[in-house]
């Protein structure tokens, strides 16, 4: 622990250098702006910022993206509470109590509760990341290919189980992502797969083009089909924050504790994320909260629970990313991309080989939590004016960012065609209500899953029971089965209930 604190202290010192501090500041402001604008999602914002990191060194790059990620979980709260426009899907639960509280003439109090929740969620997530990352990495050193396969499978099943849309659609989306990951030259045999004689496909399909196309251009096309018809907003509305008093905070201890735990767990489990954490925390509050009957009428618990949980997922996500090199969400996948672009492979060894960088990132997360809260308290008024920008103008620039971002990676016009293709795919996914996240995660985790599966099969003479007989992989596989069974059971239960309801209505 002393060593960890020492490294963290050094991390804070490294953070004081100009590139790191500047990246932190820019990341916080841009993350907040991205979260405020309804047309831009948090993942999209992080994706669009990626090309700017090409010319930077690795530490400021990761600090920039992580700061965006953190402040993005907070910024959307303002539009949810004040204008009933969720900047992000994770802000939707804030509509249910935050907006009613604002309508009761207490917008400053609602924003105060949000700030407090973001501050607590952010601090607890940073502490958990620092405390859990090293033991997690030591534990991961015992991992062999079956364990890696089991963990990746858990992540993939998690995104299917918790993805939100129907399980079949999530599974189809995941399969498409996994198939996209197989395009190109196979690692084990060196054979071309699904290249159809197109030379550029031999290099495979870059998951960044899939992400940028599906999330970025796909969203722009979807909004275009709606005629960029978002209602205009009077952003000059009085925006103030009033922090709650200690005696108001004290009774919310159980809510804060529950939501913190939910957030951290949703962060660590690959596939779950801030949106899932936010919804689950609100749902749990509705079941076990002291004032559960009043939930939805504009009470503090309904604001604090989802906000604490969504911010608390960030540090949780950073743990498997740094310790295993496995991203659990879209935003951490982009951060992994930034690591790889700079020639750094996250994994258990990173805590020995790149300790200074890792702890500077952790230190930047602590600073980012305070920074985003200060920004939210003092500077949100000018920031929120971005809502007055016409949607057609911002969308045109978002589309352009998608192209430049994709082009910058390899200076190849072919990648632009990939963006167009996956932009249309993303639009079709939205149109037919298929979730995009499983496809993207399938695309990212697919190669890791295949390599660890094939290596296990070669090493253990095609004995597939190896995944179930080794203690760690067996436990993880059991969790995977549970994760997949849970929504299936939920569906069966709902199906059994439906006919009875129909009869009653009849």
């Amino acid at each position, binding site marked *: 622990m002393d060593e960890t604190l020492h490294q963290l202290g050094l991390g804070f010192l490294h953070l004081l250098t100009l590139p790191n501090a500047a990246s932190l500041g820019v990341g916080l402001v841009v993350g907040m702006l991205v979260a405020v604008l309804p047309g831009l999602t948090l993942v999209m914002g992080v994706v669009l910022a990626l090309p*700017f990191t090409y010319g930077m060194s690795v530490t400021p790059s990761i600090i920039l993206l992580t700061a965006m990620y953190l402040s993005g979980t907070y910024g959307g709260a303002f539009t949810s509470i004040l204008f009933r426009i969720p900047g992000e899907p994770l802000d939707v639960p804030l509509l249910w109590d935050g907006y009613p509280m604002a309508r009761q003439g207490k917008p400053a109090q609602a924003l105060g509760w949000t700030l407090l929740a973001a501050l607590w969620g952010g601090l607890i997530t940073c502490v958990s990341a620092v405390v859990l990352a090293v033991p997690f990495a030591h534990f991961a050193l015992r991992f062999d290919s079956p364990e890696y396969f089991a963990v990746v499978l858990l992540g993939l099943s998690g995104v299917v189980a918790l993805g939100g849309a129907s399980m079949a659609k999530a599974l*189809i989306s995941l399969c498409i992502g996994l*198939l996209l990951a197989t395009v190109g030259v196979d690692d084990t045999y060196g054979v071309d797969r699904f290249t159809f004689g197109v030379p550029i496909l031999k290099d495979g399909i870059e998951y960044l083009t899939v992400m940028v196309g599906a999330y970025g251009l796909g969203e722009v096309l979807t909004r275009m089909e709606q*005629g*960029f018809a978002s209602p205009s907003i009077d952003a000059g509305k009085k925006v103030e924050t009033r922090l709650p008093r200690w005696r108001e905070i004290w009774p919310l201890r159980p809510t804060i504790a529950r939501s913190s735990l939910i957030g951290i767990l949703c962060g660590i489990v690959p596939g779950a994320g801030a949106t899932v954490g936010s919804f689950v925390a609100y749902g749990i509050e509705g079941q076990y909260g002291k004032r559960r009957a009043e939930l939805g009428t504009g009470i503090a618990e309904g604001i604090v629970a989802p906000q604490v949980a969504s911010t608390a997922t960030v540090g949780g996500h950073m743990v498997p990313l740094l310790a295993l090199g496995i991203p659990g969400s879209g935003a951490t996948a982009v951060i992994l991309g930034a690591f790889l672009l700079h020639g750094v492979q996250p994994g258990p060894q990173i805590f020995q080989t790149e300790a200074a960088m890792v702890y500077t990132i952790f230190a930047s997360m602590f600073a980012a939590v305070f920074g985003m809260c200060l920004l939210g308290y003092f500077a949100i008024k000018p920031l929120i004016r971005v809502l007055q920008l016409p949607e057609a103008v911002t969308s045109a*620039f978002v589309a352009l960012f998608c192209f*430049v971002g994709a*082009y910058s990676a390899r200076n190849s016009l072919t990648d632009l065609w990939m963006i167009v293709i996956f932009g249309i795919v993303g639009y079709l996914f939205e149109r037919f209500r298929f979730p995009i996240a499983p496809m993207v995660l399938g695309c990212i985790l697919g190669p890791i899953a295949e390599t660890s599966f094939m290596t296990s099969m070669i090493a253990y003479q095609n004995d597939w029971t190896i995944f179930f007989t080794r203690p760690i992989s067996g436990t993880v596989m059991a969790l995977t089965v549970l994760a997949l069974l849970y929504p299936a059971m939920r569906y069966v239960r709902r199906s059994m209930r439906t006919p009875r309801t129909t009869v009653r209505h009849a």
Partner: protein
Amino acid sequence: MFGKLTSLAPYVALCAAAAWLYRDAGAFAAAARPGQLGPDFWPRAILVLLIVVCVCEIVRRLLFEGTARDESAASPTSGGADAQVASEDRFAWCLAGGIGLTIAYVLALDWLGFFVATALYLALFMAVGRYRRTRVIVSASVLGSLAFVYVFMKIVYVSLPLGRGPFKALSVWLLALLGVR
């Protein structure tokens, strides 16, 4: 009945595509070493899963159409957005224009160079997106393109396309003006 068939279309199309890819994967099965799984195993396993899920969904929609709809609508993270999209007017011509414009932009980039193609793309995109303030359109597209050229070529060091013929000359002149070597 027509609505039901339309809702089945994506699953039928995916199933057919998966079956075709499964057959295609047979071509690289030959590379397998004796006693080991071949390079076709993993993609074929995914394709089988995809076909099974699609078939299950088709059957489910044919037999329990109402239930399938209910589940989709009940989804916590997508339900709100779905409902919003369903209730809003659709601007098909706007979408078609946007897609056409985007394809044209990628086609024209190599010819016109980044600056000209981008300025045109931004301006036309805003116009197709039903924005009508000409001054804002012109200034945002020209200044935005210049800013992109400056940031990416001078600061991020990305070699953006210069174009051909007179457009290349224009790009080179512009770069000299911006101090990009």
